[in-house]
């Protein structure tokens, strides 16, 4: 098992280098270049821009810039923001808790709901519930997240006035858990909606496939009652594809959080990304790209380890 983990970690290194190369290249191919934003500012003169270019090292050949940036990434120095000159890593990390909170709550709600809906749908296949769940999932998947976000704000914040429309705290109540929870409800539901839909579909088909396996009939033939069959025999087998799904769903969560955070003014990484994009904050954008890549790779690694822990056949490879 330790060898398995070590091997997977080593495999992640070339992947990260590839991601950093592509990301770095794309940023430099983007029109305008990092300093385009200053050219629109009338108070900044040509020699100032030239000075900034030298300070940030943008006058050096591109491969030198890449190597400096990449070695910085691996040694913890992710560069400095154009505006304010703050360390990029600090800027990202201070946004991380808000995003993790939103992602965590949305994911918990979605997995719990989606799994329950999926399992029920599989057990009572073609029932009224199953048909409704399928239709509902299709509905949730065919509308964009921002539409649900706007509708949620319209209904629950503006019309019913039950919940706040955005932000993380009420002004002056930073640190108040109750206020935080109130603000968390709408973005969580909106972000969870789409994930619930996918999860209910995937878990339904995963359980349907497992429930028709020969070993499930064996379990019945030895008198294992229905609930224990579902939990002890079906679940570990059906969980494997679902854990793999969780691993690859992390990037989707980031992009979903991006829209949701923007709509609800949630001060997380998604908002940071959108803001950085608007301000052409290249160091922040590249830093976030690397951060997301590391997250995705770690997520998949954890998923693989969990699958190996469940299924002894995976450990052999």
């Amino acid at each position: 098992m330790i060898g398995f983990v070590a091997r997977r970690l080593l495999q992640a290194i070339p992947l990260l280098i590839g991601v950093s190369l592509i990301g770095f290249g794309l940023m430099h191919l983007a029109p305008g270049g990092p300093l385009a934003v200053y050219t629109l500012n009338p108070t900044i003169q040509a020699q100032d821009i030239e000075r900034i270019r030298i300070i940030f090292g943008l006058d050096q050949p591109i491969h030198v810039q890449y190597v400096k940036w990449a070695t910085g990434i691996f040694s913890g120095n992710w560069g400095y923001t154009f505006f304010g000159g703050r360390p990029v890593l600090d800027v990202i990390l201070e946004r991380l808790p808000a995003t993790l909170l939103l992602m965590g709550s949305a994911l918990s709600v979605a997995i719990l709901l989606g799994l329950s809906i999926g399992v029920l749908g599989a057990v009572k296949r073609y029932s009224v519930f199953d048909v409704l769940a399928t239709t509902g999932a299709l509905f949730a998947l065919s509308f964009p997240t921002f539409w649900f976000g706007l509708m949620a704000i319209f209904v629950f914040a503006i019309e019913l006035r039950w919940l706040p429309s955005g932000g993380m705290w009420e002004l002056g109540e930073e640190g108040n858990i109750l206020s935080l929870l109130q603000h968390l409800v709408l973005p969580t539901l909106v972000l969870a909606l789409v994930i619930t839909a996918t999860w209910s579909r995937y878990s339904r088909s995963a359980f349907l496939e497992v429930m028709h396996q020969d070993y499930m009939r064996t379990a019945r033939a030895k008198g294992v009652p229905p609930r224990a069959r579902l939990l002890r025999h079906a679940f570990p087998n059906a969980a494997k594809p679902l854990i793999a799904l969780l691993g690859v769903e992390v990037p989707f969560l980031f992009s979903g959080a991006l829209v949701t955070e923007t709509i609800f003014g949630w001060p997380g990484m998604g908002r940071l990304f959108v803001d950085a994009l608007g301000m052409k904050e290249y160091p922040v954008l590249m830093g976030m790209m690397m951060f997301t890549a590391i997250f995705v790779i770690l997520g998949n690694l954890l998923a693989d380890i969990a699958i190996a822990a469940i299924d002894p056949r995976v450990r052999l490879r």
Partner: protein
Amino acid sequence: MTAAATLPRDARAAAAEGPLLAVRDLTVHIPVPPHVLRAVDGVSFELNRGETLGLVGESGSGKTLTALTLMRLLEPPLAEMPRGEVVLEGTDLMRLSEIEMSALRGRTVSMVFQEPMTSLNPVMTVGRQIAEPMVRHLGLSTRMATMRAEEMLRLVGIPDPARVARAYPHLLSGGMRQRAMIAIALACRPALLVADEPTTALDVTVQAQILDLLAAMQREIGSAILLITHDLAVIAETAHRVAVMYAGRIVEEAPVASLFAAPRHPYTRGLLASIPRIERRPEPTLPEIPGMVPGPAERPAGCAFAPRCGRAQPRCAAKAPALLPLAPGHRAACWNPEDG
């Protein structure tokens, strides 16, 4: 009302003296529009304690469906189809709720399946899978049941049972897995074991070992066995009595020796003739039964075998013959049976 009902005996004593299992008029008619597939069509047989009854027939003859029905293992929508009685130790299994039935499965009646490669749960250790019915039915602690599981593995002839109990199924060969399946099925010492083609998926050398094991376990535990197979050689080796199925019906039933020596139904005779025999060599061609098993649409009103039968008479096509005794313990459903 029969005379038995008037006798001053309680039902349990009567059940103990009667057959262990009595299947009466078991019928599974499956609507396949525009036809009705009479997959099992009025099957009746009895099985005594400690006895092995071989149920033999071609694929599609309804033998596996019979087994799954009497285990009540059919899934919806098939689960609603069966009619008739399956009386095990005085209880009609067909009338039990799913909960009541699941208390009997694995304890009083168990099943071994054809496919040992897929019949074990791949993510559960072999020991846990054997221990599970003992925890459920005998109220053993997990530790106690795990010890008994190792004992069962030793009993079914698996070397190093302690290691195998901790192993996962993918590490075992097909024969080993079938031994483990038998250990699971017999863990609670059931009165009846239903074995559905238990050797079909195995190598020939392993087949004989598994049949020997079943016979040995029967001596050890005393379970009656309903052995379902398409292979007459397996029957000859293992069973006490045989029931031959054709197109959803039992066409002949007899003690093994009597059936092999003097088959009365033309279908049975055809089956026996189509077994290659070393002492008949060289034979130019293996005799075969002409024609095919009729599909649901072309099943005749009378005897289903009549269109393929060399001894068919006009009345064979008109009315299906009943399963009637022709000699002691020997019954056949034929208007014009072969000589005994």
